[in-house]
């Protein structure tokens, strides 16, 4: 069997606890001065990769994290290395050079080939665009097996992987052989916090800088954003005193 060479794509996004605000020009959301963090699903992917190594059932040769984004994307790459990734690749993009999921998938295909990866673990979605496409697109471009929304990953000997995935109404289990793409869901694990010594160590781990051109990618847009608006406000805040009040109000609103 082959030792694992795991590629873990990560993305820097507005922190999950911050409520995003649409900008005045209605072209997107305000990002300046807003707290950013690693996309929560990507933390699950990094954690799972490190656990596969720690589980010792399958030898892990390399855990490489990769992110495309502005200079600040290096912060999340360092965090990932503090959690246990071996090395990082930062693909620097300029202002306004945001990649769409298809562009990211093409970039990752090139990176997978270059790094001789045989397993890609990535989040099922990023919490900014909520598109949920990149992993499936990457698997399609590579012609690899895919298992999305994983809640359990088991190596069952040889190159065989068994993945339990969350589907409507429950879970489903699939079996595949490496190479494959797995996307992570919330129940997969609980990501660790990086300890201070590990944060220090991560500063010395290799971080390679690349450009989109290195992978033959351009930031062309297939989807043009016409406008971004606030959702229609919801008029809430009505209160009642007791259960009888609740029942009569719900009847009045036609909900009972």
């Amino acid at each position, binding site marked *: 069997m082959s030792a694992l060479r795991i590629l873990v794509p990560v993305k820097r996004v507005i922190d999950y606890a911050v409520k995003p605000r649409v900008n005045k020009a209605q072209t997107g959301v305000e990002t300046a001065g807003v707290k950013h963090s690693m996309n929560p699903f990507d933390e699950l992917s990094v954690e799972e990769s490190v656990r596969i190594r720690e589980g010792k059932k399958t030898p892990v040769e390399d855990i490489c994290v990769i992110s495309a984004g502005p200079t600040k994307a290096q912060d999340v790459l360092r965090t990932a290395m503090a959690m246990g990734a071996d090395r990082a690749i930062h693909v620097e993009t300029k202002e306004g050079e945001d990649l769409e999921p298809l562009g990211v998938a093409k970039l990752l295909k090139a990176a997978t080939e270059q790094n001789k990866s045989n397993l890609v673990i990535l989040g099922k979605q990023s919490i900014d665009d909520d598109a949920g496409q990149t992993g*499936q697109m990457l698997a399609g471009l590579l012609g690899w097996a895919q298992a999305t929304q994983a809640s359990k990953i088991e190596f069952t000997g040889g190159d065989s992987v068994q993945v339990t995935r969350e589907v*409507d109404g429950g879970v489903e289990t699939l079996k595949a052989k490496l190479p494959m793409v797995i996307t992570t869901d919330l129940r997969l694990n609980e990501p660790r916090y990086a300890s201070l010594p590990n944060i220090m160590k991560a500063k010395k781990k290799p971080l390679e800088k690349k450009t989109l051109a290195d992978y033959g990618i351009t930031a062309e847009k297939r989807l043009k954003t016409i406008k971004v608006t606030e959702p229609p406000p919801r008029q809430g805040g009505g209160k009642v005193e007791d259960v009888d009040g609740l029942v009569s109000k719900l009847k009045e609103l036609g909900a009972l």
Partner: protein
Amino acid sequence: LSALAVLEQRDGKLNPGSLSAVTAAQKLGGPIHAFIASSNVKAVAEEAAKVEGVEKVIVVENGAYDKGLPENYAPLLVENIKKGGYTHILASATAFGKNLMPRVAALLDSQQISDVTAVESENTFVRPIYAGNAIATVESTDPIKIITVRGTAFAPAAVGSGSAAVEDGVDPKAESTTEWVSEDLAKSDRPDLSTAEKVVSGGRGLKSKEEFDKIMLPLADSLGAAIGASRAAVDSGYADNSLQVGQTGKVVAPQLYLAVGISGAIQHLAGMKDSKVIAAINKDPEAPIFQVADVGLVGDLFEKVPELTEKLKSA
């Protein structure tokens, strides 16, 4: 312009949730064909042929497609898209659609438009981003548009008086590199969470699985409601993960959403704030859930909910 709506089946029955794709396709204004592939596909095709607005049903009879594995289903769909010359491919944003469609999009070199909530024109679509905290209007420049649609925004097309022609599609018979092993689906006599008229949803305030069941199940039964849960309740093991409502769980928009012991994190609100009427019971008067609730009751859920259940039963 011609649209292909990708329909789902389970055990030889059409999944009504997948008919949202037909409704969204109707907004485009061109002819609509439906696609279905499975073993014993004839029975499902007969049902699909009655769906209003569908002109033709393309069928592929092959048991290899029963589980909707994207490794062979995506090439199958691509061949049929090319043969039919379709410009718009639509599927519901169910587990099946979310798993399959981006792979199809990649094979066709098209940038998918996910979770569409409105069709503005044949190339302009509306979709929520940032957990619904912002609404984006986007224009696609791809010749073939791959679209998943949010079920709560498009009511499933009616299975009624339609009489579509049924025609065999092409079957490239690609091998799947994954093998389906098993499934474990929650069995319930209650309405399906995604499509229920009423939903009662429990949060961390329920304190344990035992209390969740003791408090929420009778409440759901008194209303004929589906049961949902917040991520906190699911993570704490009070409720099954298939019941999670929120940005990364189910998105629901029932006539009545009753939140019990749920504080209302933005990720939870993303999954339910399009409900027609929202009611909340929570002991914390400052809980954010009250800001979106039409009717709020501040109080101890362990007293108020059983009282409510009794009153609903006797009503």
